[in-house]
């Protein structure tokens, strides 16, 4: 479906007006355009708005009359390009694999030659004139259509619905009109408007240099040429055709841009406000030995929707704290808020957000942020810069923030790679990221995060993008680093099994809140209390499960951030839901020093003298 943006509407309306003008102009102003007044090269006046040319003819009338020939030639050249291009592209696509590859390569090369040069060849063969110009420019634009057609055919023909339709016995002509054309029509329309603007410019250019329309016929390009000669006596003579060519080109461009923007999902990006950081009230005292303190952290969209809705926790030195939850629970945003790496446009508020004595709510010193917090990202293949060698990327923080020399920094990077068991560490520094396997890349990422000896390592789903065996190796590596160096870690994962084996303490997040906080020992011993945590555990595949026992799933999906219930976010999916759950925020039930859960059902049970 075409989205009618302002530009698209303006371009279409303007071009329609110009086409109408092209139709009627020769009838209305045809006589004025050819009448010899004897007043040659007069300047602009009330009678002749753009003055007269060398033979005393009205320039404005000539410009208006030339619209028809210019548009006809442009349309003809665009049609030549479109028809030849679609035929060529289809032929290349229908041909065998070898012909296709050679053909596509040839089309690629042809696209890269300037249209004017091809037009010169055709003009040389056919002689200067309007036919040669139309054919030349038409042929010059053919490869662009051929390439688009071949690419579109390749992408559409490979899609499931085409295969399905073919299997269902839909006849070929219906397949074409019902399934293929609607899918390739819009990109073709975009190219048509781009080509229209391009052929208009090129054709007018050929006429301008004298190789297109020959006298006594004239189009805008030819008029511009005579206008250039008269530039000293009557500058307005050149302005008419100059404006006409540019305006028509711009309008066609509007149409192309408008259509393309409608096709491009990136064009619909929301407008965001700037990011701000503020303190909320009522800080609660954290444990005295806490390294990272997060109190009442909120991350919200500019419209006020909370993505993270008041999260409080702490990490002690040498402790691995895991955060687990489904996607959309706010766990990664929490981690990125701690690392000060949230995307633009999100609001961060908290009562406290600090790493030891480093206040993360104030504009913390870049050097301390870079060296005291190490970050391991989810996707190692996307998180290294593909264009830079590993050496530069790994040593950057040391050299920039610690003032370490190049040789020393490379030595330390080599040692760090060696310590996370990256093979041939010295040679790796000279390699680009794509030359490493996924597991090696994540090891290198961990080495990079540890190079400055950070006090906290934030690991945001560091094993999600890896194979299962590589996953186990990376987890073992993280545990080893924690035991060897005592590095504290905030470990984010959607996999409660992984969290349970690696971490000391676990935070279970749901709908932007922490619903349960417990030790890994309690978790593995089956002492989780919150219905959501228990549902997560039940949904984890187990090797010791009885044969034929179906894997439990949590019915429904997490609510969108702006549709969360006022009470417990899990209300609506919970099996133990009480009448208050959806409306009243759940109270926190405490089951021990490191174990609490926010749940109506648990506190009701406790107040009834339940199992605590």
């Amino acid at each position, binding site marked *: 479906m075409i989205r009618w943006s302002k530009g698209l509407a303006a371009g279409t309306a303007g071009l329609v007006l110009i086409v109408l003008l092209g139709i009627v102009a020769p009838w209305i102003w045809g006589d004025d355009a050819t009448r010899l007044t004897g007043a040659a090269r007069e300047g602009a006046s009330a009678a002749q708005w753009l003055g007269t040319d060398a033979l005393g003819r009205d320039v404005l009338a000539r410009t208006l009359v030339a619209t028809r020939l210019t548009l006809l030639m442009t349309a003809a050249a665009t049609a030549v390009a479109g028809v030849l291009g679609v035929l060529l592209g289809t032929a290349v696509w229908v041909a065998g694999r070898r012909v296709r590859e050679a053909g596509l390569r040839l089309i690629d090369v042809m696209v890269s030659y300037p249209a004017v040069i091809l037009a010169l060849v055709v003009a040389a063969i056919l002689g200067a004139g309007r036919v040669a110009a139309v054919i030349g420019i038409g042929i010059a634009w053919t490869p662009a259509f051929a390439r688009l057609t071949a690419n579109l055919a390749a992408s559409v023909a490979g899609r499931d619905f085409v295969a399905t339709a073919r299997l269902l016995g839909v006849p070929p002509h219906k397949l074409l009109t019902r399934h293929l054309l609607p899918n390739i029509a819009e990109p073709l329309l975009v190219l048509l408007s781009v080509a229209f603007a391009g052929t208009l410019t090129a054709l007018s250019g050929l006429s301008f240099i004298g190789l297109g329309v020959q006298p006594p016929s004239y189009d805008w390009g030819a008029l511009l040429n005579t206008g250039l000669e008269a530039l*000293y006596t009557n500058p307005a003579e050149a302005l008419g055709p100059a404006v006409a060519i540019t305006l028509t080109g711009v309008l066609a461009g509007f149409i192309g841009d408008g259509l393309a923007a409608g096709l491009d999902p990136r064009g619909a990006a929301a*407008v965001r406000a700037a990011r701000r950081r503020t303190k909320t009230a009522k800080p609660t005292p954290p444990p005295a030995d806490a390294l990272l303190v997060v109190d009442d952290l909120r991350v919200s969209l500019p419209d006020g929707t909370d993505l993270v809705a008041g999260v409080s926790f702490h990490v002690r030195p040498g402790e691995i704290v895991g955060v687990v939850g489904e996607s959309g629970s706010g766990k990664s945003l929490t981690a990125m808020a701690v690392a000060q790496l949230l995307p633009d446009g999100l609001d961060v508020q908290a009562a406290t957000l600090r790493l030891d004595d480093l206040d993360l709510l104030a504009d913390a010193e870049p*050097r301390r942020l870079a060296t005291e917090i190490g*970050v391991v990202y989810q996707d190692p293949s996307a998180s*290294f*810069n593909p264009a830079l060698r590993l050496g530069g990327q790994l040593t950057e923080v040391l050299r920039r923030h610690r003032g370490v020399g190049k040789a020393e920094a490379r030595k330390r990077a080599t040692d760090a790679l060696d310590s996370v068991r990256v093979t041939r560490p010295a040679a790796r520094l000279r390699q680009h990221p794509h*030359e490493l396997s996924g*597991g090696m890349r994540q090891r290198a990422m961990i080495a990079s995060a540890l190079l400055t000896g950070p006090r906290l390592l934030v690991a945001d789903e560091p094993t999600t993008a890896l194979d299962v065996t590589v996953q186990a190796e990376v987890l073992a590596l993280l545990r080893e680093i924690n035991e060897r160096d005592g590095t504290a870690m905030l470990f984010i994962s959607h996999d409660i099994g992984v969290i349970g084996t690696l971490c000391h303490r676990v935070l279970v997040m749901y709908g932007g809140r922490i619903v349960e906080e417990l030790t890994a020992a309690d978790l593995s011993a089956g002492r989780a209390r919150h219905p959501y945590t228990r549902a997560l555990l039940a949904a984890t595949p187990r090797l010791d499960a009885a044969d034929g026992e179906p894997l439990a799933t949590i019915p429904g999906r997490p609510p969108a951030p702006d549709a969360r219930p006022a009470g417990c976010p899990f209300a609506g999916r919970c099996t133990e839901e009480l009448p208050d759950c959806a409306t009243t925020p759940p109270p926190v039930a405490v089951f021990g020093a490191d174990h609490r859960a926010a749940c109506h059902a648990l506190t009701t049970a406790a107040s009834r003298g339940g199992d605590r």
Partner: protein
Amino acid sequence: MIGETAVGPKAPAARGRGLHPWAGFLLRRLAGLAVALAALVVVTFLMMQLIPGDPARALAGDTATGAQVEQLRHELGLDRPLTEQFTSYATGLLHGDLGQSFQTREPVAQVIGSRLPFTAELALLAIVLVLLLAVPLGMAVAIATRGGRRGRLDAAFTFVTGLVGATPEYVLGTLLVLVFAITLGVLPAAGAASVTALILPVAAIALPATCVLARIVRRETAGVLEQDYMRTARGRRLPPLRLYARHALPNLLTGTLTMGGLTLAGLLGGTVIVESVFNWPGLGSRVVQAILNRDYPVIQGTVLVLGVLATLLNMLVDLLLGLLDPRTLNGRNAP
């Protein structure tokens, strides 16, 4: 041990049969260049064969006798078999012999030798100017408007680049002459007599392409800024210049050159036409004259040289891509 597979199957060392990735890349590019040049030679040769009617008759003029036409045909070698004509054309090229102008009897090689430097000067200056202007401009606007900020700047940039980018080089050239040469009288309107004479033609060729490329750069930059590796770089808390110049620039140039390479090659076409605006003594104005006079050897030679220039320009873009993004060394251009 999965972790020990140091070099994956896709790594270049394994693909290039032991060749250094650059060696394989250059070999492929040179082979491509050779094919393209051979194709240009064939096309320019066939161009002459496709001319309808009889070139000798057309050249000799209406008053010539049959014997004179025959004589001319023989001089031009048009009476010999096609393969023989091609062989003599190709061997002539190898010796730098492109034939003689019908019109002035001047060797075509000499015509090109005297004209090419002027065209190359315009085109190269324009390319350098486009790259120097478009990349910083597009990046600056992308950075300033990221996340939907500064809506007015965004709108102004889109409008101005849309307008200037859609203005043909020769129209812009005419307007520049009107303003700077005629109205203000500060710059020469035509000719190549002084260094200042370069300013208007180069501006006319470079400005529209700058706008087109700046829009591409802006789009590519916006895409690159959203990438994970830019978050990694932000995590290193680098100063802005280093963050954008070192971490964003190489990546956005890859996409920019892949898409904008056409714009750069198109500058050559713009140059050919703009030469007519400024009476610039380059190949473009000469080929127009030759086409109007049916001076076939000059057309043939000029088109061949323009084609070679376009080929070299495309190759230059490929080489830049290889330098900027080593992944493109392994095969096709697109990453």
